[in-house]
């Protein structure tokens, strides 16, 4: 058993014992009217015990009522219901008790008064007077007889025993005593039934007789019965004697004595009760009042106790409900009974148990989902593929880092925003969004497509797939979409480069080798046949062989260019003073361009430090760029070429920038995204490998290159090379376009 249960049990035992003691005291007090002597002593103590119980009960009741008032004012849960129940119970108990008390008091007052009503008192008084009258008649007769005795004694003048005995018998007296007025006994005559010692004449008798008045009285006897005492005086005859007193004692008949005793006892008892009437009423009313107050207070206390017992489970339920509402599902209510309220408490406990179990299951599932979500987030974050999930109304739900990287704008900051309107006009994100929206708006919910977008100067190729998310119910609208896309520009570039590398290798292998025998054969034919031929044929042979040799040389140059493109790099990385290198290369071109009327401007940033690079490759890069610029300005007056170096910053890393621009016709708009592809050229004699090799060298150094047209006209190529060796190495190793080293066969 827990502590509250033990406390409740102890309280019930104490209250039960107190109640029994109180009941015993009440019953004990109620018996006081029936058992006398012992109760006469215990009566006040019993009353005091009841009063003490009353005081204790009053204290308890006031404590409970004060608590109830405090609860009411404090808006404690259940206090109002409890107060109402206490009020109803109390009133229901008080009204009948007060009613019974009122009638009981009335009954007591009237009942006790009726015991002592005038008729009974008068009857008893009358009976007493009647009895006394009857006895007084006899007493007078006895007095007369005594007077006769006195007259005869006075007449005879003697008090001899014989005379006195005769007179006694004649008068019917039990005893006749003759005494002097001072009380000295002169003669006595006694019957056999009288005591041996003669009855002396009492002082009051002598006093009355001396006053000349005869004395007669009825005297109750200690042994029971009555005697009539009479006394008269008479004149003495003996010389020297004064007046004498004769006292005669007469018996009262037993029957009359018995009746007199009965009447006396009744009268005395009635007198006692009449005297004690008011205390009797007060005591009864007091007893009744004490019982009433005890019952009343006990009823109110019981009302509070009962209300508390009834309200307690409700209070517990309310507290428990609040606790559950606040998320405390460990709440358990004490099961105090097995009635309907107990069933309710049991149901509540069962409900909280089930709720807790369900919440634990949900928490486990949520935890698993969170784990999955975290894993998925990690995967998505590490994924190089862009993943964007959309709400059914095409608001961005999630976006991974790769999506931001590919599309060039912070998509994670766009979570919650509608897909429409995202990105800047003509930006990559806007083009991507519009492409996807148009497909979804067309009702194509699941698709896969390769998009080509023009993002500024560069062309971007994205492979995008859209998959609808399952809706809440089967057959309903999708719960959203997932866009998965990847930037395959570099991959396609690499594939193209690989393909062209293979082409170059085959060209070098299949074409270059036969060129030398062709040229040697042509020269041999010319050398052997030319002298022996006529002039006309000789001229024909000479032109023919000359053409063969020139074309073979042209093809050889082309094959060498292919060979250079496909050649595997042999890096000799070292510190290169970029400004100095630029100055050296431009100096070589300065005389050439000056002859064509082209101005070559070199704008070098003095703070540009040395870069770690392959000096020869960088020289080739600059040669290719300057060659392109010079060829672009061919035939154009006032041509201008500017070569500049600057300090730059890319992705938080320091870099150097090389910019070569001219004021020629610039790149064709439709080819501007493909200028770094091999064999893409607008020049009649170009191989289309110049910028492709530039791109290759830049990527080998972990740099970045872009080409576009200047707003004022002309082309511009901008190259960024990282200054940090680590960044350069990482960027170079990340480069996907080197599946295998390509080696140009000589």
């Amino acid at each position, binding site marked *: 058993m827990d502590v509250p249960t033990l406390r409740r049990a102890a309280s019930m035992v104490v209250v039960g014992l107190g109640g029994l003691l109180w009941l015993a005291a009440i019953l004990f007090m109620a018996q*006081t*009217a*029936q058992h*006398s*002597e012992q*109760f*006469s002593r215990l*009566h*006040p*103590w019993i*009353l*005091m015990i009841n*009063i003490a119980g009353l005081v204790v009960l009053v204290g308890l009741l006031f404590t409970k009522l004060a608590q109830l008032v405090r609860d009411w004012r404090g808006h404690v849960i259940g206090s109002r219901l409890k107060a109402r129940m206490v009020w109803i119970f109390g009133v229901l108990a008080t009204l009948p008790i007060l009613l019974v008390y009122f009638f009981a008091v009335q009954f007591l007052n009237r009942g006790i008064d009726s015991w002592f009503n005038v008729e009974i008192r008068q009857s008893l008084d009358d009976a*007493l007077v009647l*009895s*006394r009258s009857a*006895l007084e008649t006899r007493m007078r007769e006895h007095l007369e007889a005594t007077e006769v005795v006195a007259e005869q004694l006075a007449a005879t003048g003697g008090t001899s025993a014989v005379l006195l005995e005769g007179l006694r018998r004649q008068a019917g007296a039990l005893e006749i005593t003759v005494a002097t007025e001072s009380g000295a006994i002169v003669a006595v005559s006694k019957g056999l039934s009288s005591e041996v010692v003669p009855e002396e004449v009492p002082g*009051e008798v002598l006093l009355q007789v001396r006053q000349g008045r005869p004395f007669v*009285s*009825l*005297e*109750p*006897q*200690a042994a029971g019965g*009555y005697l009539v005492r009479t006394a008269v005086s008479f004149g003495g005859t003996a010389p020297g004697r004064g007046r004498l007193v004769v006292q005669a004692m007469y018996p009262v008949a037993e029957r009359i004595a018995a009746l*007199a005793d009965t*009447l*006396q*006892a009744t*009268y*005395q*008892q*009635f*007198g*006692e*009760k*009449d*005297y*004690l009437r*008011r*205390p*009797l*009423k*007060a*005591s009864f*009313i*007091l007893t009744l*009042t004490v019982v009433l107050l005890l019952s009343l207070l006990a009823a109110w206390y019981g009302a509070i106790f009962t209300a508390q017992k009834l309200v307690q489970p409700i209070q517990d339920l309310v507290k428990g409900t609040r606790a559950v509402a606040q998320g405390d599902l460990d709440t358990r209510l004490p099961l105090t009974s097995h009635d309907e309220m107990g069933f309710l408490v049991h149901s509540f406990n069962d409900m909280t148990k089930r709720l807790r179990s369900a919440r634990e299951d949900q928490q486990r599932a949520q935890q698993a989902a969170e784990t999955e979500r975290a894993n998925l987030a990690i995967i998505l974050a590490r994924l190089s593929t862009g993943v964007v999930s959309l709400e059914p109304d095409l608001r961005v739900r999630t976006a991974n880092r790769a999506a931001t990287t590919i599309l060039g704008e912070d998509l994670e900051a766009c979570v919650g925003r509608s897909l429409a309107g995202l990105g800047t006009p003509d930006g990559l994100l806007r083009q991507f969004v519009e492409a996807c929206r148009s497909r979804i708006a067309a009702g194509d919910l699941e698709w896969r497509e390769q998009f080509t977008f023009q993002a500024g100067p560069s062309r971007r190729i994205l492979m995008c797939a859209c998959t609808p998310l399952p809706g809440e119910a089967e057959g309903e609208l999708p719960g959203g979409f997932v866009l998965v896309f990847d930037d395959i520009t570099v991959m396609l570039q690499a594939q193209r480069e690989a393909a062209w590398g293979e082409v170059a290798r085959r060209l070098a292998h299949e074409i270059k080798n036969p060129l030398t025998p062709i040229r040697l054969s042509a020269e041999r034919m010319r050398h052997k046949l030319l002298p022996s031929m006529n002039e006309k044929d000789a001229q024909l042979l000479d032109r023919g062989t000359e053409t063969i040799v020139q074309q073979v040389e042209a093809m050889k140059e082309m094959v060498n260019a292919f060979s250079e493109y496909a050649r595997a790099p042999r890096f000799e990385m070292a510190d290169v003073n970029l400004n100095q290198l630029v100055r050296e290369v431009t100096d070589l071109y300065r005389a050439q361009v000056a002859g064509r009327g082209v101005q070559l401007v070199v704008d070098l940033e003095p703070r540009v430090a040395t870069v770690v690079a392959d000096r020869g490759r960088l020289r080739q890069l600059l040669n290719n760029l300057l060659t392109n610029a010079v060829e672009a300005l061919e035939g154009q007056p006032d041509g201008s070429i500017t070569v500049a170096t600057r300090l730059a910053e890319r992705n938080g890393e320091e870099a150097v920038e090389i910019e070569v621009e001219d004021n020629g016709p610039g790149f064709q708009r439709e080819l501007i995204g493909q200028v770094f592809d091999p064999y893409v050229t607008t020049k009649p004699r170009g191989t289309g490998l110049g910028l492709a090799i530039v791109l290759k060298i830049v990527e080998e150094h972990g740099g970045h290159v872009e080409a576009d047209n200047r707003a004022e006209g002309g082309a511009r190529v901008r190259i960024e090379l990282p200054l940090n060796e680590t960044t350069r190495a990482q960027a170079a190793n990340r480069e996907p376009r080197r599946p295998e080293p390509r080696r140009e066969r000589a």
Partner: protein
Amino acid sequence: MSNSRHASRSKSLASRGLRAAWLLCFLATTAAPAFADTRLQVASASVAVDDGVFELDARLDLEIPEAGRRAIEAGLTLELDYRVEIARVRRYLPDDEVASLVQNYELSFHALSQRYLLRNLNTGEQQDFGTLQAALDRLAEVRGLPLLDATLLEPGATYEFRVRAALNLRTAPDTLGWLLFWTDDWSATSEWFAWTYRR
């Protein structure tokens, strides 16, 4: 009676306490006649040797209030007890009680005969009086009450005689005795009246 002490009236403290509590609680609604004091004290007492027996003569100063007189006339019984104690006085030790005696008297009114009956409950002797005062006068006087044989007291020793009287009221049958708790209390007990006697 060389060293006599004057006695004074006293009441039972316990009874007074209880009654006071009750008065505070409830007696406002009960019949509570005006409290009237009873005077009871031993006015004089002496012993004399008569025929080899110590006999007591004593007189009380007894005054019953009017309420008590009415109660007796209504039928209640008055009890008066004389308690006599004889103790040997020792110098360094507590007194040694030699003898004690209680003499009980009962006074009631006989309505039929209009006589007041005074009974000696020890001897059964009964006397009747025409007036209550005569009965009370007789009750207040003790003459020649034999106490003990003179030979029981050692010659040369000093003895202390003590007399005390107690007055009480009771109902003739005890059925309603408990109600006397609610009546005016005129019961009383006197202080000890004591004197030394050198044998």
